[in-house]
């Protein structure tokens, strides 16, 4: 009824309302820029047969030489997964995924046991060099320890020795299973149980690698730890698992980056990240997600269905998530914090940018259980082209969470008139002393702001860049410096051609 009544605006009217021809052209140019990480690396791969069944899980577990408890846990997860239904409640649309038509294990073929980084396959190193992640010593200059994961298998970890001096364990998940099975057994699934959701169950069953990080009591990690994920092989799903444990009084800042080649078909990425913060510990987790978003017609791209959750187990712990989401065809991700201890703090800073036909349904959950718990949510959504961008967040205050405090702000910026911005905040308050505030605004890039810049000789394209970066400043300032620079550049590239 109402659709029929909606009128098409006449073209001239349209120009008046949506800026000049020139402005629209600039927008078009900016939004149509290409994905710059779209190449593949020709490396010999070892894959398991296509399909998903108990045999494959046995195969993966055997391949990784895992102890019995891991295999058992995987099988339990798989059996549970078979009983689950794929969730359809997110505000995104995508074709059905054929879980039997994918490889669940793809690893760069190892020639021999590696003794040092110099022995890493030069092609692999080239790949990561191209990405700007030099696994080698270059990174010493920036002081970032990197664990690089390609098609679900961790290929190299830098700075291991330096970290070991402090008692910090930073290695691939498989290594952790081999060398620290007691820690893995204690913490795996303790924050995201395999029963949690469809994709977490799938990940628990078939995850092939990931990163593991353990900071002992009272240690302040001397450098930023970083993981770089890359999907390379066709038809593979990437299922990595990250587990970070910070003991009493420990501190770590952890970075994660992701890219993938350009392919016509969609690829699934279903990761799980678990963070455990003990008494007084602080974990800062930053992500710059730039999986291949599909082409301008919406073909191809990564389905990014990720479960990320941290728990502040004891008093005074703090977990902070910062994410810059510019890639993926479909994103479905809610980094959450369970504030269990008293005086614990949870933070969530997010910039989610969608362009062309990208869809993102992302946000956070803050579960207040302890007394005097505090959480902050700052979410900045930017939609351009024909994309859909949703914020979905939950703030729950438990019955015993005296004096819980939450502040949420989710702003949306629309660039162009064919995109959508949506907010779905859920507030559930069970305690009278709680103070919960939620604010949201939606607007477009102000014409007066563009005019102001134009007047001062700044082109419309640059003006949009400035305005958008200013709009995201609150989030960018939470990112570690190198990442902040990268994020700003990424934003500029993703927006290229979309100015209005």
């Amino acid at each position: 009824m109402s659709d029929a009544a909606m009128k098409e605006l006449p073209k001239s009217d349209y120009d008046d309302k949506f800026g000049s021809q020139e402005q629209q052209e600039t927008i078009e140019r900016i939004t149509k820029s290409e994905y710059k990480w779209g190449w593949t690396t020709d490396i010999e791969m070892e894959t398991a047969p296509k399909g998903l069944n108990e045999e494959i899980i046995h195969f993966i577990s055997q391949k990784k030489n895992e102890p019995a408890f891991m295999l058992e846990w995987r099988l339990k997860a798989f059996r549970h997964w078979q009983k689950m239904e794929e969730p359809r409640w997110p505000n995104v649309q995508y074709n059905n995924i054929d879980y039997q038509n994918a490889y669940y294990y793809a690893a760069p073929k190892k020639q021999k046991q590696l003794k040092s980084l110099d022995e890493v396959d030069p092609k692999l190193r080239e790949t990561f060099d191209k990405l700007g992640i030099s696994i080698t010593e270059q990174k010493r200059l920036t002081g970032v320890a990197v664990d690089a994961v390609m098609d679900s298998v961790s290929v190299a970890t830098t700075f291991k020795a330096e970290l070991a001096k402090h008692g910090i364990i930073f290695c691939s998940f498989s290594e952790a299973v081999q060398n620290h099975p007691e820690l893995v057994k204690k913490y795996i699934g303790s924050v995201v149980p395999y029963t949690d959701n469809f994709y977490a169950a799938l990940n628990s069953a078939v995850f092939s690698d990931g990163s593991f990080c353990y900071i002992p009591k009272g240690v302040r990690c001397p450098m930023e730890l970083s993981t770089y994920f890359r999907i390379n092989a066709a038809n593979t799903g990437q299922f990595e698992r990250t587990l970070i444990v910070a003991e009493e009084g420990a501190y770590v800042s952890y970075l994660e980056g992701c890219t993938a080649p350009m392919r016509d078909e969609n690829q699934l990425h279903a990761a799980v990240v678990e963070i455990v913060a003990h008494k007084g510990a602080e974990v800062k987790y930053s992500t710059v997600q730039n999986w291949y978003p599909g082409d301008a017609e919406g073909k191809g791209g990564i389905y990014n269905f990720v479960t990320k959750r941290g728990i502040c187990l004891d008093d005074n712990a703090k977990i902070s998530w910062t994410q810059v989401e510019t890639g993926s065809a479909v994103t479905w991700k809610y980094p959450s914090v369970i504030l269990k201890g008293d005086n614990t703090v949870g933070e969530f800073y997010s910039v989610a940018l969608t362009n062309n036909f990208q869809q993102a349904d992302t946000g956070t959950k803050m579960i207040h259980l302890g007394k005097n718990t505090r959480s902050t949510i700052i979410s900045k959504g930017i939609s351009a082209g024909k994309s859909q961008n949703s914020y979905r967040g939950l703030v729950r205050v438990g019955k015993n969470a005296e004096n819980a405090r939450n502040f949420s702000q989710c702003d949306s910026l629309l660039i162009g008139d064919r995109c959508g911005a949506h907010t779905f905040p859920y507030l559930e308050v069970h305690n009278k002393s709680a103070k919960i505030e939620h604010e949201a605004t939606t607007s477009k890039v102000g014409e007066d702001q563009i005019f102001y810049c134009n007047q001062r000789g700044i082109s419309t394209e640059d003006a949009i860049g400035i305005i958008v970066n200013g709009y995201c400043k609150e989030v960018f300032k939470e990112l570690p410096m190198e990442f902040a620079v990268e994020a700003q550049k990424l934003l500029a590239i993703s927006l290229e051609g979309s100015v209005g």
Partner: protein
Amino acid sequence: MPQRAILDHEFIDWTKSSFQLLENGLNGSARLPFHGVRKAAVAQFAKLGLPTTRDEEWKYTNVLPIFKNQFALANQEPVVAKNAIDAFGFEGLRDKMIVLVNGRFSKELSTLAIDDSTVKVGSLSDAIARGEKAVQEHLSRYADFNSEPFVALNTAFTLDGTFIHIPDDISMPHPIHLCHIVVAEDAAAAIASPRTLMVVGKNSQVHLIESYHTLEESAHLTNAVTEVVLEQGATVEHIKMQLESKSAYHIAASTVHQAEKSCFSSVNIDLGGAIVRNNLNVVLNGENAESHLYGFFRTTGSQLIDNHTFIDHAVPNCESNELYKGILDDSSKGVFNGKVLVRQDAQKTNAFQESKCLLLTDDAVMYAKPQLEIFADDVKCSHGATVGQLDEDAQFYLRSRGIGEEKANSILRHAFASDIFERIEVAEVRDMLESLVFEHFND
């Protein structure tokens, strides 16, 4: 959940047999075209079934406890003494009342007399029987029984209600007060399905007050549907007050359809009821239309009050404003779900929404979900939601001036609620509500 299935099936069977009974009692009017709509609605309800908390729209409101009661269609012609109604009238508006008993228009009890013969206020069933043009054009066109189970249930059992038609260019000199009363006579709980259709012509103006009362303390279900149509330039104030007993169940859907330059303002007050659900849907379907939605609820005991609003900005240049407030005591529950949809091309939309709630105890629970869905870029939309306690600074200010804690809190709650009451344009209603709610605070 097997328990769910049994209840659901039992109730669907009940609706089918009750519908049969109703059909048998219709005599001639079963031949009217509207009966076809009823039939379609009862079939649709059987298909939809009762909503559960697994439905996103009913996530926090479990209606199943309602249907553990044995229901009977409310007796359509109970005897009600004229003086029993007096308590429900407003000072100064007692001669402007339309009384509906168990959803049925009561000629004896209604006091409203209209001089203007072009204005029609009266029984909906008469209007259906007369084949009134506005009824044929608008009835059941906006309240969607295809997706809303309770609208389907109401439509299936719509026997009577109120029909109001105000032609073009008429400014009603006084408000119209629809007073809904439920009287349960049998042991079984009564279901009343009042239906209201109001069509307001071009540039006309009216204030409509709907109040819901229980005559005797009893468990009963009021399942009301109201459709309001505003033609070009019409102005409507709609005040809905739900003052039923604390053991009553109340489910209401109001659907508003606005044409160009029309202005709709709604004030929704809930004080009674055990489980209450209000759905208010507004479609802004003509440019330069304006909507203002205000709501207030106050819960005690184990009441549950759920307000769902949905504003659909279908065309450019419209404005909507929304403010809902609630005060929750004891182990009561409150739900607010406000959705604003701005469709593609609905440029230059301004939409503002706010929800504020006070929790007085740790057992009270508030669920808020302010939701924006925006498909146009040149818009200004914002929403805010807060849940908390009274302002400590304000409390301190009052107490440092020698006002006791209880009194200070009472003053602040009153101020909190006044924000909504101030919006009521009909002075008689505002005064009565203020004193009613203030009484509440002094408890």
